[in-house]
């Protein structure tokens, strides 16, 4: 990759002067053979990256017989929903979708609430020892979940919430809000002081200032957090797998992953199961594209 690029632009050095400036101007629009090589390589790699999506889509609409005669690359002889319907009914997919939506939705709302409260104390209240408090929250978020798994399992069994979606909601509210606190504390630490002082002079209490001033002004950041908490929780695997053992409580990724290798899963049904796992996240991607882009790329949008 880089060898090809080097070859294209590794020209002999030119002496500074009018002629070379002219060349640079011109080179910007002129496409050399090397430029095309780089472009082709990049596009080929991009095709390789989306090829699995393509394969999953076309093969989910085939019958196993169609698959074995036509191979994986051919478009379906006749488009059928059999594979998808089979998996859909087998796992009771709407129920799994509802579980995932309930868990991710509750977690994102609760985690944002907890983050706001903690960050208000740390960022605006500037409580003593806040640097260490923030580090504590950040570490809590980075811990491997295996280190909490067995004690949590034991605790939730003790209080009767094992195999109940609320166990997962509570755990991820804490894990996500740990990150949210870390982030929001730093954002609130730079909150415009004049605004707070003005509100305070008007006689607003701390509680009022939080809900009437701080939260509305920081709404863009809060919405980024909300979307990311939702998607991160949706994608979680280890803890839902351990805590939601009965079929009725499983989330979408767990339901799909645990059926792999099942002998009733023929080749097109398996493909359909992958497709059903991909579709919800594709929908989020399309709906939240702008929020995601703002969250992921540092300073890309300005």
């Amino acid at each position, binding site marked *: 990759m*880089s060898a090809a*690029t*080097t070859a294209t632009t*590794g020209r002999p050095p*030119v002496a500074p002067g009018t002629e070379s400036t002219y060349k640079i101007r011109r080179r910007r629009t002129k496409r050399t053979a090397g*430029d095309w090589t*780089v472009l082709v390589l*990049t*596009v080929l790699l*991009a095709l390789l*990256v989306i090829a699995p999506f393509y394969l*999953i889509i076309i093969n989910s609409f085939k019958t196993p017989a169609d698959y*074995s005669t036509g*191979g994986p690359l051919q478009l379906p002889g006749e488009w059928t929903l059999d594979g998808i319907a089979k998996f859909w009914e087998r796992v009771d997919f709407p129920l799994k979708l509802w579980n995932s939506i309930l868990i991710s939705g509750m977690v994102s709302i609760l985690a944002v609430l*907890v983050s706001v409260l903690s960050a208000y104390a740390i*960022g*605006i209240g*500037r*409580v003593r020892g806040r640097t260490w408090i923030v*580090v504590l*929250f*950040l*570490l809590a978020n980075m811990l*491997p979940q*295996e*280190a*909490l*798994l*067995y004690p949590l399992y034991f*605790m939730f069994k003790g209080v009767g919430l094992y195999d109940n979606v609320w166990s997962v909601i509570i755990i991820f509210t*804490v*894990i996500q809000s*740990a*990150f949210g606190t870390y*982030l929001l504390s*730093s954002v609130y*630490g*730079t909150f*415009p*002081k004049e605004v707070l002082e003005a509100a305070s002079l008007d006689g607003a209490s*701390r509680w009022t*200032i939080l809900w009437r001033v701080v939260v509305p002004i920081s709404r*863009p950041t809060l919405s980024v957090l909300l979307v990311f908490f939702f*998607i991160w929780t*949706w*994608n979680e*695997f280890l803890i839902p797998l*351990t805590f939601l053992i009965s079929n009725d409580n499983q989330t979408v990724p767990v339901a*799909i*992953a645990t059926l792999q290798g099942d002998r009733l899963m023929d*080749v097109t049904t*398996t493909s359909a199961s*992958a497709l059903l*796992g*991909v579709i919800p*996240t594709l929908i989020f*991607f399309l709906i939240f594209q702008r929020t995601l882009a703002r*969250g992921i*790329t*540092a300073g890309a949008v300005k």
Partner: protein
Amino acid sequence: MSETRAMIAVEERQRDPRPAKRTRRTEDPLLPKSGKNDAAAFWLYLIPGFVLLSVIIVVPLVWNVYLSFTSYRGIRPPEWIGLDNWIRLFGDEKFWLSFGNSIAMIIAMVVIPTLLGLALAAALFDLVGRKFGGKLASFLRATFYLPQILPIAVAAVVIGWILRADDGALNEMLRAVGLGDLAHNWLGSPDTALLSIMVVMVWVQLGYPVVIFMAALQRVDPELYEAAELDGANWFQRFRAITVSIIRPEIFVVTLTCTIAALKVFGPVYTLTRGGPGNATLVPSYYSFSEFFQTQQVGYGATIATALTIVIGVVAFFFIRAQNRAERAEREG
């Protein structure tokens, strides 16, 4: 996907609200004092966060460390056995093997995506974007990013489907082009199972550095390149001296956060191989999970989990230190 956390932090710090008016860090709250119980009043807001953190994180963590010094099979109360588990851990070949496989995960999730991501980001930003149009560059960037949004277990199912033993797409295609001899039970053979998991991870991970690095490249002043070009620097020299040095903070963040993620890999191993065949794809997190819930050796599982926590803690320490330094530099600068 979770590695994006660090970048969101960087982004939001830069953006929100009015970074120009950054208030100097003092010990006073930003709100003027209104009563005598002022300091105490703000602590009230920390109560929900602290209670939840203690119950769900701190207590289980300490408990888990305690369990690593016990023999516990989940039924009778844990029995204190001192350092026995830890001594066993250091002599346990299976444990070292699982850490060796973590190195393979680091290659698949950190080394390859970062290097390839750098090359791709530079090619897309500098060459494709300039000569073939920004729209094409953004479109390609979105394509590389697409696998990142998948739940990792679902990504594993997608690649696992292609690698199916008898009728998988890869084997079918090999047969179709007359290379049937190369058809292989990719996930079921000890020689290719780990490689297959690595393919899943590279596929998922590649888009993350591409997106981050391309965003970072916008900080680079194009005149720098022109000046370097005039001085006779070739493409690679410019890439190394300008591109890499300017986006070094992003390279650092990507490397550390992805290393932490690589040490935690669990979903694809559970979904595709359950650590097998033999122990060919065993990773520490799966090893501790199976000790907890399959062999019921809870004490030993807790030891593996604690060891993993220590390793991740060390990486996280360097990460937090670097983040704080960057923040301090930003504040002073």
